[in-house]
């Protein structure tokens, strides 16, 4: 520690002393109000481990860097890497006998035991993504944001741009916003893009493909209103509409085709065919969120979304987070989420022999089915006096679906067709200011 050089004679220290004493006596309240000075880089990072029972595991790391480049003008960059391993349902239904499938590559086979949900065991993927946003004031009450993003997997490339405007009105108590995004994605699936309803050939046959790669575009528009209700309450309401065009099918998902005798047995030849979806989807959603701080400083954050599309899917999502603040910068935040979805019109858990020639579209992807997702979680966070934060959370996610009675024919009535799921999520996060990193490094060398 350095002392100032003694000045000539005594100097007035009363004011500095009084300020110091004020902090001593009043007890500085916690640093949540401390905002890092804009010259620094704000660094947020998180590591997520997601594991499904007997299925997929995912490790995902994020690094987010935000810097104020001019008055109230920010650049935000985010790097994400995730590694996925394990297996996921391939769309076929369980059977009383073992089932053998040909891998998408066509080079090998895998066998699923009797009475279990068939899973594609060769799932292994590495994804790297980068997104950059530029957020700037256009005038005192208008902000604009421009963003770009790219995400790369070994069989998938997604690139996109987005732009939004936010106009404050009503003495900044109301914000109107509008946003657009455009994404162009390219599939380069292993073994090529299967033709719609192409049969999964027995090894070593090759499936019929429509090409080696394919693509889709996704456009979205969002209109939103954010309203300050009072000193402690804030609400947001959005309407959004999106449209996807192009190849919207999952190139790895198949359907089981049954004999048309009501027995529920797989048909004798080529019992599995690749799924086929429409090449356009229009979806809309209404979203509402409220944030309220109680006099005890706890914060409730609750949202509801109603989503519907022209595939016949509609869903309701309720999300609730409640933050309890404790002395010394600790907080706990329970999280509850409830999601209920109705099935797409062309969702089928099985097909009957011959239907593939009469139907235009069919998919057994459980994500297009009728199901409920429930999430329960708890987050613990600690805010340091200097504004840094460290946090952890653990969540349990369960997914339970409803079988279509029309598809559960004959012996399949004894099987659970929908692949219910149970997953656990662990996350750790750390937020810092570049200043703190520098100070910490200097302390290490001291």
């Amino acid at each position, binding site marked *: *520690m350095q*002392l*100032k050089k*003694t000045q000539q*004679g*005594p*100097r*007035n*220290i*009363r004011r*500095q*002393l*009084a300020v*110091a*004493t004020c*902090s*001593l*006596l*009043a*007890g*500085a309240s916690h640093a949540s109000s401390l905002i890092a000075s804009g010259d620094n880089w704000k660094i947020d990072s998180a590591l997520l481990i997601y594991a499904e029972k007997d299925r997929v595991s995912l490790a995902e790391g994020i690094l987010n860097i935000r810097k104020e480049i001019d008055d109230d003008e920010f650049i935000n960059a985010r790097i994400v890497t995730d590694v996925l391993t394990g297996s996921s349902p391939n769309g076929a239904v369980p059977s009383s006998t073992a089932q053998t499938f040909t891998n998408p590559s066509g080079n090998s086979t895998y066998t699923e035991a009797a009475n279990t949900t068939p899973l594609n065991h060769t799932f292994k993927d590495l994804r790297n993504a980068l997104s950059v946003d530029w957020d700037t004031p256009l005038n005192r009450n208008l902000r604009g944001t421009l963003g770009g993003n790219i995400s790369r997997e070994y069989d998938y490339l997604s690139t996109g741009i987005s732009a939004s405007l936010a106009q404050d009105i009503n003495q900044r108590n109301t914000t109107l916003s509008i946003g657009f995004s455009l994404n162009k994605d390219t599939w380069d699936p292993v073994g090529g893009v299967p033709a719609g309803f192409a049969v999964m050939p027995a090894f070593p046959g090759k499936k019929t493909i429509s090409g080696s790669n394919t693509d889709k575009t996704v456009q979205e528009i969002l209109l939103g209103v954010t309203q300050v209700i009072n000193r402690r309450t804030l609400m947001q309401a959005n309407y959004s509409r999106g449209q996807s065009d192009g190849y919207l099918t999952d190139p790895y998902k198949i359907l089981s085709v049954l004999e048309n005798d009501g027995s529920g047995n797989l048909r004798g030849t080529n019992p599995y065919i690749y799924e086929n979806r429409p090449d356009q989807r229009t979806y809309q959603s209404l979203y509402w969120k409220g944030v309220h701080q109680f006099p005890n400083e706890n914060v409730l954050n609750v949202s509801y979304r109603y989503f519907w599309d022209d595939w016949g899917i509609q869903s309701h999502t309720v999300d609730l987070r409640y933050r309890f603040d404790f*002395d*010394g910068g600790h907080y706990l935040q329970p999280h509850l989420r409830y999601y209920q979805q109705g099935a797409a019109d062309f969702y089928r858990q099985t097909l009957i022999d011959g239907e593939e020639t009469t139907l235009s579209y069919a998919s057994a992807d459980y994500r297009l089915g009728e199901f409920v997702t429930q999430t329960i979680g708890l987050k613990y966070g600690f805010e340091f*006096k200097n504004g840094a934060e460290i946090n952890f959370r653990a969540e349990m996610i369960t997914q339970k679906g409803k079988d279509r009675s029309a598809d559960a024919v004959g012996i399949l009535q004894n099987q659970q067709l929908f692949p219910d799921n149970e997953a656990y999520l662990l996350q750790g996060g750390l937020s810092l200011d570049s200043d703190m990193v520098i100070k910490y490094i200097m*302390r290490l060398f001291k």
Partner: protein
Amino acid sequence: MPDLERRADYFVGHFEAMASNCEVLIDTEDKNLAQEITRLAAAEVCRIEQKYSRYRDNNILHRINQGAITRVDEETARLLDYAQQLYQLSEGQFDVTSGVLRRAWHFDGSDNIPSAARIKALLPLVGWEKVQWYNPQIQLEKGMEIDFGGIGKEYAADRAALMISTFVAGQSDTHACSTPVLINLGGDLAVTGPRKNGNGWQVGVNSGASTMSPQAADFSLKQGGVATSGDANRYLEKEGMRYSHVLDPRTGWPVKNAPASVTVVAASCTDAGMLSTMALLYGPQAEDFLREQDVPWWCQWHNKEYLL
């Protein structure tokens, strides 16, 4: 149980703490309220005394002084932050690690002056700059000690006043919620506001043979606090030289020609205490320092023949 005494138009509560007679003057006619306020003040002062007494071996201070890395609570952290700020503000004159010097100095009026070698041996154990304080963790070097003795009483007076203000403000009775109170911890005073009649509290400062600032002439306490540093009865005397008990932590020796005592009025009792302590540390320049601060003060000097 603290005892309560009724005076003309107010109550006085008494209790003993921090080796002082403590008083709480409560500007109310409500005996129950006065009782409750006195109890609160006594509880807060005793709490601070126990938490930061250097004569106990079961408190946070004792744990810190063992020299291990210690994680401290928020209140202790604030005190340590404050100690650090004062160290910087006083350019090293005010140092909570200087208590170690008392192992050599016993100001009992005798001629028992320690040897220069003894002081020199202690000096490596003094100096806030050697303390590893990274809020909320602290570590002292082996043999060093922290002592809040120089802040404790004033801090307790302010804390008690603050607690009472909060308590009183929470009273539903409109009379009760504007009850002004004066805390007196053996001469260190803090008030919660002027008296109900709008006047300040009349405070007698023993100003025998002293100089004072112009503002001190007709003075009554409306806001803040008063504190006195120095003790005319604590000194050593050898070969006609009087050593005051005010030690300069930078040299380990008493400040030469310091005033016998300094009394200051400031925005809080703690402020007043720090200003009066620093004035003593300025020695013969004490009054220059006080004038610079623009506060009411009284300064009592030893008999002039002791001045060099």
